[in-house]
């Protein structure tokens, strides 16, 4: 019987990731004088901001036992819609708002099909992923849209080398996500849907409403990510955001959230993103070819999943 779980046990995956991160940080700062500079860390945070946003949104969806494979396409389509609005001389604010609204709409669309027609999220979002990407290609005719006002590109880069908008947005959303996941009904129900959806229905909770809201949250994060990368790159193109949804899933699962839902871990997701960012940064800093990058990420992901699964099986009765 597993009583008196102490904190080490409870926060095992976070601590493990933190340990790896620490070792890596020590190693890299020993190897390169540039690693521990503020500017380099600002870079790392800047790079992971997009992945973190998507992973946070994905975390709520995965907590329900679902998945949102349309995130990457949503990022792309949102960016393109903002770009078109800007090119049509809309104000920067209205372009951003329209883009985010479209993202929200795409998320609700995902949620409604999943909830009302009762098709598995994997299939639905796989389909909408292709649908949204296709729309992006049709609208742009395959060509990039580029060169925006500085008031817009500010959202991707900021004006100085200090904290820039992507990092600030990601931080705010991170704090908000921790609070929502652990301190509110809304967050708790995401895990409860993954843990035992039927139980939640039986106690009179409108499960459908909540489910749609998590896909909406995921899509809103995609909208923000779309804003950031379009502004940062000063271009929107139909190939943008490709594969980003899988990077988000990687961070979520590596962070200790369960793929089948029921248990989500926001702080773990953050540490996983940071770890992945440090690995990518470290390889460039050390001028090591990123041939190794794929291997290392795959290895870490598999280890995290296997470890979590083995521990789970040993302890939980069903």
């Amino acid at each position: 019987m597993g009583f008196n779980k102490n904190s080490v046990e409870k926060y095992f995956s976070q601590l493990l990731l933190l340990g790896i991160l620490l070792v890596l940080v020590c190693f890299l700062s020993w190897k390169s004088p540039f690693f521990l500079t503020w500017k380099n860390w600002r870079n790392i945070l800047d790079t992971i901001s997009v992945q973190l946003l998507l992973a946070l949104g994905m975390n709520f969806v995965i907590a329900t036992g679902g998945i949102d494979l349309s995130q990457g396409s949503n990022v792309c389509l949102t960016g393109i819609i903002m770009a078109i609005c800007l090119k049509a001389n809309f104000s920067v604010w209205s372009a951003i708002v329209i883009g985010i609204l479209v993202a929200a709409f795409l998320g609700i669309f995902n949620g409604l099909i999943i909830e009302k027609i009762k098709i598995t999220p994997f299939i639905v979002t796989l389909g909408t992923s292709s649908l949204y990407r296709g729309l992006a290609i049709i609208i742009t005719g395959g060509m990039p849209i580029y060169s925006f006002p500085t008031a817009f590109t500010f959202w991707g880069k900021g004006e100085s080398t200090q904290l820039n908008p992507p990092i600030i947005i990601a931080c705010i959303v991170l704090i908000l996500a921790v609070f929502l996941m652990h301190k509110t009904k809304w967050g708790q129900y995401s895990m409860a849907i993954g843990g035992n959806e039927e139980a939640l229905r039986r106690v009179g909770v409108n499960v459908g409403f909540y489910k749609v809201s998590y896909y909406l949250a995921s899509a809103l994060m995609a909208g923000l990510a779309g804003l950031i990368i379009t502004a940062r790159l000063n271009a929107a193109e139909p190939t943008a955001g490709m594969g980003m949804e899988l990077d988000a899933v990687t961070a979520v699962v590596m962070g200790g959230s369960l793929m089948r839902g029921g248990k989500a871990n926001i702080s773990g997701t953050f540490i996983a993103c940071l770890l992945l960012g440090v690995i990518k940064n470290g390889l460039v800093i050390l001028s090591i070819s990123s041939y190794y990058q794929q291997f290392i990420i795959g290895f870490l992901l598999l280890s995290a999943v296997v470890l979590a699964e083995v521990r789970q099986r040993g302890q939980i009765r069903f």
Partner: protein
Amino acid sequence: MSNISKVPVIKVENINKSFGSIHVLRGVNLEVYPGEAVALVGDNGSGKSTLIKILSGTYGPDKGSIYIHNKQIEHLTPKKALAEGIATVYQDLSLDNYRDVIGNIFLGQEITKWGFFLDYPAMEAIAIDLLKKLKINIPDPRVPVGYLSGGQRQGVAIARAVFQGKEIMIFDEPTAAMGVKETATTLKLIHSLTEQGIAVIIVSHNLFQVFDIAHRVCIMKHGRIVKEIPTGDSSPQEVHQSLIGQTGLEDRMEQIYGI
């Protein structure tokens, strides 16, 4: 039995329910009074489970009416049922294994500050109090229920139902997965609920187990309640005998008249 009043807490009339071409319930009538324990007994497929799913609002009946305190309730949903004080302990316990004991007890009825913040200290205090009152032995209510034993998990499910259900509690096969000792504890717990004036409906396929705590046994067969026997003036053996006799007759009638 003296405290049973004349107004039934819950009354159902002529409940019918079909799934596709299968006619599961064919006109069920049932009344339960405050402080009374009614046992629903019958074979698998006799319609017990469907009946309690209708009472808890999971299914809507095709035909028939439901009254709570003599007030007819249209379109009973799980939410409405809970609001009317009907709580159910499901056979599968309906627990979220990853959630701690407190979280499971308050599932769907969380206590919040300013309607937003979850108020953990308040919930923990109530949960500890409730578990103590029900004599359920769980030392740490912050442990995920997946870590608990079968009896403890049953205890959590009952604690939740007690917290939710102020009027009527429905138990679906409460002792199906239990050992002898745990069964006795659970039955004692159910009995203590009736003493507090709560109406209890117990579904079971084991007549002998529930006989001692039930005031009335309703025998279900082919989607109907075919016989109601007060337990006060008969023995389990007699009821069992009549159950067999009754069903024997039913079967013959079915053969003859094709009902």
